[in-house]
């Protein structure tokens, strides 16, 4: 029996988290759930515990959703899961869509599966500025990966055990955006796959995407991609 872990990442999602966890319990696949609470100041942790879900609670905020990835990689690696999914706690992700990203990993056809909003253009499509930024980075990442990718910044992802081990054991450095995750996995030899999924708009609260983030994101993104490119030889050796 293959074991699946769904890591719900949350920062001040006390209002959305209950619905998200309920959605996972009622409509999600058979999987263990863990909530990664990035030092929320509201009752996020209490909500998760009330639902009987284990919580990894950061003692300090480690910055955005990418600050939580190290925790779930370490947790999944420590507990030997066969598939790890990232699932946003803000209600944007739909539990019934999870099998689509889990299936390629469990079928051992992919090590890194991206749930893309743009393959079928169903559901919430994000704002115009974000879509443009995503398209530019999707184009750059596609060039490196050598296959067409559309939603590279999607937080709806599934990883196989090899990718989990890559980040939990070998590349224990700060990961500051999804391009980095994707390209490092690719350079290490992971099979990347993209499947169409639907998403919702968030119900309560605000996104971490602020004007400041919009301004700095392109520059950081380019530097991150350059960094991955420079590290590619070192990364290739890990699985070689």
């Amino acid at each position, binding site marked *: 029996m293959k074991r699946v872990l769904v890591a719900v990442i949350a920062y001040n999602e006390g209002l959305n988290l209950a619905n998200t966890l309920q959605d996972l319990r009622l409509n999600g696949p058979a999987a263990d759930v863990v909530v990664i609470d990035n030092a929320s100041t509201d009752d996020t942790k209490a909500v998760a515990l009330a639902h009987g879900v*284990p*919580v990894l*609670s*950061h003692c300090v905020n480690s910055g955005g959703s990418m600050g939580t990835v*190290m925790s779930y990689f370490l947790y999944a690696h420590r507990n030997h899961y066969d598939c790890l999914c990232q699932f946003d706690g803000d209600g944007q992700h739909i539990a019934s869509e999870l099998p689509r990203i889990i299936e390629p990993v469990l079928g051992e056809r992919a090590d890194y599966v991206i749930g893309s909003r743009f393959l079928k253009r169903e559901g919430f499509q994000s704002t115009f500025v974000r879509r443009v930024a995503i398209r530019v980075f999707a184009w750059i990442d596609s060039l490196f990966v050598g296959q067409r990718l559309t939603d590279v910044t999607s937080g709806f992802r599934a990883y196989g055990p090899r990718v989990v081990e890559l980040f939990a054991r070998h590349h224990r450095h*700060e990961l500051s955006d999804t391009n980095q995750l994707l390209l490092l996995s690719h350079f290490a030899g992971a099979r990347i796959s993209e499947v169409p999924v639907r998403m919702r708009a968030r119900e309560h609260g605000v996104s971490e995407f602020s004007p400041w983030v919009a301004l700095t994101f392109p520059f950081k993104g380019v530097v991150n991609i350059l960094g991955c490119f420079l590290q590619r030889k070192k990364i290739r050796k890990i699985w070689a």
Partner: protein
Amino acid sequence: MGLRIKLFAFCIGLLFFYFVFRSIRRNNMRPAYAVLWIAISVFLLSVSVLEPLYRWIAISIIGIVDARHVIYIVLIGFLLIYVFHLTQTISKMADQIQMLVSQLSIVEDELGRTTTMPKSADK
């Protein structure tokens, strides 16, 4: 180079020496970091004695017309190296902190489960 600037460099050098050694003695500064600060102090102290040498280096090797600028150039050079080194250190520490935060959250979760389980069993 005027006497005043030499005296000034000498005094600053002495002050640096004093504060660097005091920090090392009080464990406020790791010896590895102190090396660069001691180098800066030595350079400042040496200006008054080795000024002709620096003048020669400035004019004939680097091609600086005004020898006094050597002090500034060397100091800015030191600082750039030091800031670069600090940036590297901060980046490494950020990685380490992230690792600690993640590991701590996992250990806390495991500890919470092992310590609360007997309580719920009692009920």
